[in-house]
């Protein structure tokens, strides 16, 4: 990478989100390397609560150093397929996380 990373997405090979059943959403940050994984240690339940407007106590975070992965799950704020569900598979909800600026 020529430019220095600005966001968590820049540190990752892939950031993705998906339903985990009709009532949960789950997302994964696949960091490029150990350095990126170490920087992602600042991602907390409170970070996710702020980004996604959900209660921090509902957020589960799993850290998998062997894969350089941070995985995040929380109950779906909008029921799947309901009138106000604009992302039936929750497949585009990784964007706020990927766009999150890295702390300076």
């Amino acid at each position, binding site marked *: 990478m020529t430019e220095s990373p600005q966001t968590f997405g820049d540190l990752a090979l892939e950031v993705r989100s*998906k*339903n*985990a*059943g*009709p*009532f*949960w959403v*789950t997302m*994964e940050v*696949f960091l490029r390397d150990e350095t990126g994984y170490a920087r992602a240690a600042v991602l907390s339940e409170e970070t996710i609560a702020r*980004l*996604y*407007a959900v209660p921090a106590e*509902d957020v*589960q975070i*799993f850290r*998998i150093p*062997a*894969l350089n*992965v941070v*995985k995040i*799950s929380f*109950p779906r704020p909008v*029921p*799947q*397929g*309901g*009138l*106000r569900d*604009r*992302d*039936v*598979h929750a497949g*585009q*909800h990784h*964007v*706020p996380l990927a*766009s*999150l600026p890295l702390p300076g």
Partner: protein
Amino acid sequence: MEAVRVLSPTGMLGAGFTQSTVDRGLELGADVISVDAGSTDSGPHYLGSGTAKTTAAAVARDLRILLRASARAGIPLIVGSCGTSGTDSGVDWVAGIVDDLLREEGLDLAVATIYSEQQAGFLNERLRAGAVHPLAPATALDEATVEGCTHVVGMMGHEPIEEALRGGADVVLAGRATDTAVAAAYPLMMGMPAGPVWHAAKIVECGGQCTTNPRTGGVLATIDQTGFTIEPLDPDAACTPISVAAHMLYETVNPFRMREPAGELDVEAATYTALDDRRVRVEGSLFHPAAQHTVKLEGARITGYETMSFTAIRDEHILANIEAWTDLFVEVFTGRVAQTLGLDGTRYSFDLRRYGYDAVLGELDPASRPPREIGVMLLVRAQTQELATAVAKVANPLMLHLPTPDMAYLPSLAFATSPAETERGPVYEFVLHHVVDTRSPTEMFRIEHRKAPAHD
């Protein structure tokens, strides 16, 4: 038997795979073919209506290859969650396709169907007995909710599938089953250890998803007494320790622990080792049998009827003032509905989505770039289709001509279709996220051994 080889051709029956992926699996000595045909992932419509997401021709195309392979190799074929949601209608739909194919191909295979749909009477009896429990984030269930569902299915474990196989079935067409039970049933029946079996079943459930090239064919898992080995069936694809381990993350809340009806898979201590550049060995997977066997319920109910309307905005002035335009739309629209139809906001609901602006993420959206154009979708929901359409039609002149408050003329916006309104029919929501304590692992499922179809 020292090892059992499970062939998983694809993550979804009807999604397609090549003949060569199946041929390769048979050459490698596959002992069973397992394929999932369902999911809740596409939303509550399929369970609510008891209809399939896949088209019959695509399901028949895949099944023809699998039935021929099953007959040629003399190995069982197991299909889970038939018809997308696993309703009885979904099982019968797939069974009808199979009957036609067996007749056309002149194949002599014994078919068993397993029905997983649940009656409200049975469920409410179990509810009164204190045997139904919520899973987070759901709360306690009540009888009216059960009775309000159009369809309820129980997710079977491996046990009913094993019973059908022991009863002589070559082909098992199961209603709603856990994705993993479909692949786990045969190796468990052949005495393979539960830890490696359930872990392998989770890894193969999406076919090639656990390989470095998820768009190519299926995978083969060889399960033995100490673990399992996984390899892709496409010669150009590879399984790597990372591609295999990463699949435990896919569509799971917790990547280390997964509950099945009979217990819990625990992969916290599992090791993933490359045997060569395309095969991975997995060991150390555990399965903790549960004190109480449980079956998870899925249910859907009608929440109303919807009508959709769609227009588009390219006018720079409206784009620059889209928030003011939206506010005016809501004000004029709700006022006109009250004035012309006499309906207040309790009689209908609507969602106005601005595609190209913030429709997908709404207030969560981090971007603030001005859009080049905006697609405006209006979704109206009411208790009847007629009412939903009437409300949507009141919005029609606004979706065509509404200006921003400061415009001195009426713009004409770009409707996408004529008529602008599309009736979406009944719409559904998932309402159950509960488990039932079972008295036997098979009590909630009905197995039928079908008579072989008459040959032409």
